[in-house]
Every structure is written in C-alpha cells, then in structure tokens.
C-alpha cells in the first residue's frame, strides 16, 4: 500500500474518532449517570498519557527513583495542589526537572 493511501486512511479514521461522538451523541438522551461518568474523562485519559512518559524510559522499563522526571512530577503535583495555576505548575515542574539534570 502506498504511503499516501495509508496516511489518508489513518487520517480519515483519526478524524472519525473526533467527529463520531460529536455527531452521534444526543445529550438529551444521556442519563445523569452517564454525564457523571463523562465528567471523569480528563482524569481517566490524561494519566494514561502522563504516567508512561514519566515512569518508563526508552526501553519500556521503570525509571529509577532518582530520575529527574520523578522530581519534576512530584514538585508539579505539590505546586499544582497549592497554586491551582496551570502555568505555575508547568514551570515549577520543568525547573525542578532541570535542576536535577544540571546540578547532579
């Protein structure tokens, strides 16, 4: 299969995953239970992007405790909890990550 055809098929399917629910779901038909569960979508999806990127290294094995990513992760959680500010959280996490890399 040519790369262009594969790409277009992948693109169409990718787009359909975005369009599918928006087009087909009728909010008035959603039960209160379903709406409650949907409010957990960010909390259910984002960790699956976060955790492997923090806790696994290139060889898919667990990182060691002194990995700079762990420091950045913990600091970001604490600062996020206290500040409730997205930008402060990102910057605090990144700075502590860099501190561990460049100082130790």
């Amino acid at each position, binding site marked *: *299969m040519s*790369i*262009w*055809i*594969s*790409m277009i*098929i*992948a*693109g169409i399917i*990718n*787009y359909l*995953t*975005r*369009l*599918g*629910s*928006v*087009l*087909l*779901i009728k*909010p008035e038909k959603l039960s209160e*239970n379903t*709406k*409650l*569960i*949907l409010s*957990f*979508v*960010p*909390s*259910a*999806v*984002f*960790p*699956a*992007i*976060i*955790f*492997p*990127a923090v*806790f*696994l290294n290139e060889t*898919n094995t667990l990182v060691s405790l002194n990995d*700079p*990513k762990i420091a*950045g992760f913990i600091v*970001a*959680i604490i600062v*996020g*909890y206290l500040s*409730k*500010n*997205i*930008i402060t*959280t*990102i910057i605090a*996490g*990144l700075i502590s*990550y*860099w501190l561990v890399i460049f100082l130790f």
Partner: protein
Amino acid sequence: MSKRSENLLKGFYDVLPLLLPVVPFGIIFGAIGVELGFGPYVTYATSIIIFSGASQIVFFQLLSNGASSLVAITSSSVISTRHLLYGAVVAQYLSKLSITWKIFISYLLTDQAFAVSQEYFKKNKDDDFKHYHLLGSGLTLWIIWQITTIIGILLGSIVPDELGLTFTIPLTFLALLINYFRKLDHLFVIFLSGFLSIIFYNAPFKSYIILSSLISLIAIYLFYKLRKKA
C-alpha cells in the same frame, strides 16, 4: 468586541500555556519524519491529514521499523480512540450546532483544545457562542503544529536533547488535572488509570491509553453504583 471574537480570543489565551510542549514536539516530529526517510511532503502532509502528534509519530515509527501498513494504520487509529471520549464530553454542549459546524470543529478536537475548552463549556453552559472558544483553542494549536512541523522538516532537530523538552508533554497534561487534585474520586481515577497505563503499556496496537481510560471509567461507575445501593 462581539461575544464571538471574545470567545475566540479566550480560547487562544487559554491554550497558550499548553503550547510549551507542542512547539518542541512539532519540531522534533518534523525532523524525525525526514530522518526516518519519509521526505518533506509526506512528513508535512501527516500534520494536516492525521493532525495528531502521537498518532503521527506511531505511524512513522511502525512503518520505518518494517511494520505493515495495516498495523501502522490500526495503531495510529487505536491511539486516537481517546477522541471518542473527548467528543462524548463536548457533544453535551455542542448539540445545537449545525452539521457543518460539527464537521469542521471536530477536526480541531485535540487533547489540548479539548482540555481547555471543556472547562470553558462547563462554566458557560448558556453561552450561545461557546463553540468559538474551541475554534480559538483548536485553530491556535493547528497553526502552531503546522508551523513547527515545517520548521522541523527544514531545520532538523534544532531542539537540544539535553533540555529534555519531551518531559513537558506529561507535565502539561498533569497541570491540566490540577483542578481535580482536591477531589478524592478524581484522584482515585487518576492513579488507577496511570497505574493501568504502565501495566498495559505493551498491549497490542498502542491500546494502553483507551484500555486504561475505559477501565478507570468503569471502575468509578461501579463505585458510584455500589455507593448508591449502600
């Protein structure tokens, strides 16, 4: 300023901090595409046609490792299935839009745009032009992704590896969850899904994201169901 342009700008401002990882990631993606031998046109075209960083990288990596087209298409599609969940959330607020709007705005439903715009939707249910927020956040992301892909294609990996900017990806997603850090039920879902994603990381076709998400959603559903009974 009209409500339309006000919301458009708000979407733009809200998504700005989340661009921190998008810029280096776009450049790295453009550079990787060319390095893996896909050439500038194919590499760039994926940023328009697939328009999803994770899916694009997986697509290229699998093909260059000798996987069949079918495996590459399946994996990049499975990794995208999380959008079905995003769509289900925003569908609650966008049902009054015309089909044309839905067809157009769905193209812009990325992780970052979803994250900031669903927050806006939740707080502004009665705003008739709330979809302009998603238009603003989505278009901003789209434009930045196009520009950075092109920079990566033209200039190669100009982002120094030592900066470890790939770490900003999990960091921004973590920052998006701070509003939930004080809620025990959300913390439960966050840590369950995170734990499962490590366990399932090597599951076929990059299905770990959707598997961890669905199992955690089912778990919280069961939790509430049992609590109601008790």
